[in-house]
């Protein structure tokens, strides 16, 4: 299994009571709560953690994009990927991903990713997402055309990377007389493309058809297993057998000497992530009109209406996160790998308000106690779960 250190770069000094009072850490949570002196230090703290991940032997580091939120300080992840391109010497650098529909010129993403691919001499992984619903409030982009814009931007970027320029592109949302980006990607034909998703069946089908690596965001392991089986089924329909390397599980791992100590230490920071940083004030903020079809919207609405605040005990039980002693974490991770059939773990080692010393201790424990046991381990047995 491959391990990536996935950082959300939360503004971990955020006043959690103020978030609770505002009802959300997104869009309407005033940036007057952001202290640039603390923020500047946090960027360096987090970049140092990414560089530590490289030295500790993680296979890669991951960044992502969110706007107008204390949940993550990476509206422009390419800035941080650029900062890491020369200091992360060995590991891959993944942006999971840039939200294509949010830009009015997708060629800027083709350019940015190609630059990073050159700068890292081919250690770059290109993630494409639509952004979560809140992004459409923050960025003033119409959610009704989000799916159309994503599809069109994706096609344009791939063509820009693979067809000799200049060529003419006239779409519904994007129009260019000259498509001819310099530089071209370093990797041939282009960097690997990874598709993170909350589990939309149309996204899973599309990713499988394109043979893109599918990354499942924060979900109970049983759900993850079902979505990964869906991907394998779609791959078979498309005429090939998917490899476990095409499936990545985005999780959170916290390791301490004993289960009890790990749970106690992780609890406030993990619960802050789930119940404060991730909180949206209304379903409408998370799911603006047209962001997804009416059926999916109703499903998510029903789930959200019944959602209770998450506790670490629930998250561990459902296999959303793995927290415990080295032995417990090894057992759970092996069990989950065999259940869901993935071969990449996108692991948040820092989460919520977790401070630097605890994050570094966690990263070191994972590198020493977990990674070596999984280096050559593939999913074993037949995946036990059938897709719906």
């Amino acid at each position, binding site marked *: 299994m491959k391990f990536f250190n996935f950082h959300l770069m939360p503004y971990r000094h955020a006043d959690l009571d103020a978030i609770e009072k505002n009802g959300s850490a997104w869009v309407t949570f005033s940036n007057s709560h952001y202290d640039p002196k603390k923020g500047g230090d946090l960027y360096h703290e987090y970049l140092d953690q990414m560089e530590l991940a490289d030295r500790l032997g993680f296979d890669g580091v991951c960044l992502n994009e969110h706007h107008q939120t204390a949940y993550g300080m990476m509206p422009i992840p390419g800035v941080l990927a650029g900062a890491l391109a020369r200091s992360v010497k060995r590991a891959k650098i993944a942006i999971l991903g840039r939200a294509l529909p949010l830009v009015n010129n997708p060629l800027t993403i083709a350019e940015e990713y190609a630059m990073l691919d050159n700068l890292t001499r081919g250690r770059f992984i290109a993630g494409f997402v639509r952004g979560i619903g809140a992004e459409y409030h923050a960025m003033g982009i119409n959610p009704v055309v989000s799916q159309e814009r994503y599809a069109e931007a994706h096609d344009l970027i791939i063509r820009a990377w693979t067809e000799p320029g200049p060529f003419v592109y006239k779409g519904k949302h994007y129009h260019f007389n000259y498509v001819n980006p310099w530089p071209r990607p370093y990797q041939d034909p282009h960097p690997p493309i990874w598709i993170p998703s909350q589990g939309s069946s149309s996204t899973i089908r599309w990713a499988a058809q394109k043979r893109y690596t599918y990354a499942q965001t924060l979900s109970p392991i049983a759900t993850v297993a079902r979505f990964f089986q869906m991907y394998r089924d779609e791959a078979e329909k498309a005429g090939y057998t998917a490899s476990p390397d095409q499936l990545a599980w985005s999780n959170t791992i916290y390791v301490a000497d004993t289960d009890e100590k790990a749970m106690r230490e992780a609890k406030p920071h993990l619960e802050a992530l789930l119940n404060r940083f991730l909180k949206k004030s209304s379903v409408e903020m998370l799911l603006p009109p047209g962001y997804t079809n009416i059926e999916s919207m*109703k499903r998510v609405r029903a789930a959200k209406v019944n959602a209770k605040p998450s506790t670490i005990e629930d998250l561990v039980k459902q296999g959303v996160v793995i927290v415990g002693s080295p032995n417990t974490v090894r057992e759970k991770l092996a069990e989950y790998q065999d259940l869901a059939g993935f071969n990449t773990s996108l692991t948040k080692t820092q989460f919520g308000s977790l401070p630097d010393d605890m994050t570094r201790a966690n990263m070191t424990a994972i590198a020493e106690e977990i990674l070596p046991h999984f280096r050559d381990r593939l999913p074993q047995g037949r995946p036990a779960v059938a897709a719906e």
Partner: protein
Amino acid sequence: MANHSTSMISVRGCNIKLMRGGSGTPLLFLHGASGAGAWLPFMEALAARFDVIVPEHPGFGDSESPDWFDNIHDLAYFYLDFLQQLDLERVHLAGISLGGWTAAELAIRDTKRLASLTLIDAAGIHVPDVPQFDPFIVSEEQRIRGFFHDQSKADEMIARVVRPETEDVIMKNRIAAARVAWQPRGYDPDLHKWLHRIDVPTLLIWGANDRLFPKEYASAYQKLIPGSKAVIIPECGHIPQVEKPDAVVTEMTAFIDQMKIAA
């Protein structure tokens, strides 16, 4: 109510719902972002004097969502086709909110089939430095609360409208509304430049307490549409035809009567 019919009609290949009642000169009413809904008391009252025609816009409620529906201009041209197909002349055109915006977009293009224009708490233009309630970031219940000055009337509407069986149509309407009004939020940056083209008598009816398009919008429209008359209804929010139906019917009828005398 008995005095109206509901049917589906096809306008240049697009199937839409049409409610129609009363007789007299035609009065075409264009609904707002919540869809055409039911035949309401103000429609019934107007039907005593007019042939009241209430289509449901493409993309909304029971109407079809055609592939060509991308923006407010598409709706404006659709209703020009609609007037032509039904061969309506000397039409009193009225619209609320998003429907008022559509009516204004139609009127800057062509008024030859219009006798008058009534804009009720209309979207369509932007007035700087006037805070506006954002109906898209809140729940359906909070959205309805934002419409009303009198919150007891909001309670009634919430009880009537926000039910599990209406979830699909509420979402369909919100998608259609977002399609035309998400960005820029509820206006067309070019509309204000051409409102001087409206050459039919124009009435602006506004709720004094509208939080979505506050009464400054009535003043702005009045400056932009030559000879237009503005009426501000006290203690009334964004949807006067529901919150103060009698006042709306009285003002519209009086305006049209006075127009006839002047002519």
